[in-house]
C-alpha cells in the first residue's frame, strides 16, 4: 500500500516536471524541472530494488543539470527574471507525435500478453551487477571505456577555440603555453 502511494506520487512528479520543462518561464526553472523529473525516476528505481542504478541516475542527472543550466544561460542570455518564452516550431506536429506515441506505447503496454517472471531476484543486486560487468558482460565494460574517452576528446576538440598552435607558437616550441589564464600547476 505504502509502495503504491510512493510509486504514484513519484510518477506524477516525474511526468508533471517533464511537462513543466517546456512550459515554465525561465531557463533555470526548465533545467531544474528536468532534474526533478530525473530524481523522481531514480527514486522509482529504488522501489524495484535497483539501488545502485537508481542512485547513480540521481547523481549523474543532478550533476548534468547543474552544468546544463550554465550552458542554457550562456546561450540564451537570460536573467533570473521570469519572462514568457515559447520558441517552438511545428507545434501541432509535435503535439500529435507526442500524444500519438504515448497512446501507441500505452496501448502496447496494456494489451501485450506479458510472459511470467523468469527467475527470482538475487538478494544483492549490486554485487551481481559488478560480477556481471566484470565477468560475462566484460565486453560492455571494454566498449564503454573507449567510447567515453573518445567522447571526452571529441567534446574538448569541438569546444575549444584555441588550437595547440595558438597556445605553443607556430613551431610548438614555446616553453609555457600562451593562455589567457595560467593554471595552478604552472602549465
Amino acid at each position, binding site marked *: 500500500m505504502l509502495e503504491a502511494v510512493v510509486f504514484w506520487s513519484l510518477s506524477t512528479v516525474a511526468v508533471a516536471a517533464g511537462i513543466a520543462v517546456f512550459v515554465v518561464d525561465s531557463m*533555470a526553472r526548465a533545467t531544474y524541472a528536468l532534474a526533478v523529473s530525473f530524481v523522481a525516476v531514480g527514486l522509482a528505481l529504488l522501489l524495484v530494488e535497483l539501488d*545502485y542504478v537508481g542512485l547513480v541516475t*540521481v547523481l549523474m542527472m543532478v550533476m548534468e543539470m*547543474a*552544468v546544463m543550466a*550554465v550552458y542554457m544561460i550562456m546561450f540564451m542570455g537570460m536573467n*533570473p527574471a521570469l519572462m514568457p518564452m515559447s520558441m517552438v516550431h511545428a507545434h501541432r506536429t509535435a503535439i500529435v507525435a507526442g500524444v500519438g506515441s504515448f497512446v501507441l506505447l500505452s496501448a502496447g503496454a496494456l494489451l501485450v500478453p506479458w510472459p511470467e517472471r523468469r527467475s527470482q531476484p538475487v538478494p544483492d543486486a549490486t554485487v551481481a551487477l559488478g560480477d556481471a560487468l566484470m565477468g560475462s558482460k566484460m565486453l560492455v565494460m571494454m566498449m564503454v571505456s573507449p567510447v567515453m574517452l573518445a567522447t571526452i576528446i571529441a567534446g574538448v576538440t569541438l569546444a575549444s577555440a584555441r588550437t595547440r598552435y595558438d597556445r605553443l607558437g607556430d613551431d610548438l616550441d614555446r616553453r609555457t603555453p600562451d593562455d589567457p589564464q595560467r*593554471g595552478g600547476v604552472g*602549465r
Partner: protein
Amino acid sequence: MAEVVVQVAPAWALLAALLTATVALGGAGLDGVLAARLGGRPARAGAATPITETARLLRQRRRTTLAADKPLWRIGVGGLGVVALLMVAVVPLGRWTLLDLPVGVVWFNAMDVMVWALVWLAGWGPNAVHSLVGGYRFLAQALAYELPLMFALTAPAVAAESLRLADVVAAQQGLWFVVWIPVAFGVYCLSVVGFSVWGPLAPAAAADIAGGVLSELSGPDRLLLLAGRYALLTAGAAFAVPMFLGGGAGPLLPGWAWVLIKTLLLVAALVAMRRRLPSLRPDRFVEVGWLVLLPAVLLQVLIVAVVAVMGG
C-alpha cells in the same frame, strides 16, 4: 567479527538532527573563538558568536531583490541543511543507523552532488551580479574536486569489498583505513571543505565579490545558509568516521561515543583550516584537481585494489 547494524525507526531522525545541530554549533563556536583570538578580543565573546548571530539574524528583516526567482532561491538556501541531514542519515552511530542502505557510499556521493545544484540556485535566485558570480565560481571549483572525491570514496569501498557502511566499518577491525589509504583521506577532507564552501575553497562566498552567494541574503535566509555550511562540514566529518576512522572502534567508551568524539575532532580540524590556508582560486584549482589530485587518487585506488585482491 562484524557487528549487526540495527536500522531504527524514522522518528529517531530528530535525534540525528539534534546531534548534527549541536556539533555544527560547536564548530561555529570554535570558528568564533579563533576569529576573536585573531582580532585580539577575548575568547569567551567569540564562543558566543553563533548564538548572538543566530539571535540577530532571526530578528533581521529579509531582503527582497527585484525580479528575484523566489522559489529557486529558497530551495537553494534551505536545501543545504536538508542535504546535510540526508548525509548523516547513513552514518552508523555505533550500532544504530537511520538508513542501512546496501549502497551507502553512493548515497553520500549523490547527496554531495546535490550541493552543486543548491549553491548554484542560491547564487541564481536573487537576480544579483555578485551572487551569480559566486554560484558560477562554485560550479567551476566543484568540477575540480568532484572526480577525485568520487575515487576517494571508492577506495575504502574497494578495501572493504562492499558499498555498505557497516561492512566498511567491520573491515577496519585490524587497521583503520586512514593509515594505509592516506591520499584518499586527504582528498576527501579537501572535498568536504569544498562542498561546504569553507576555508580555502570558499570562492563562492568570498569577500572579493561582496560575499558571493551570501551577498543578497539577510535575516533567516542568511542564517540558513551559514548554518547549512556548518551542517555540511559536520556531515562530511561524520561520514569520514565510518569510512576512514574505524567507526565506533576505540577503548573504554561505547561505539556511539567514539563516533561523536571522532566527528568533533575532525570538525575542529576542518574549522581550524580556514584561517591557516590561503584561498585557492577556482581557475587555478581546476588544474591542480585534474593533474595532481586525480592521478594521485587513481594510484591510491590501484594500490588498494592490488592489496584487496592479494589479501582477500
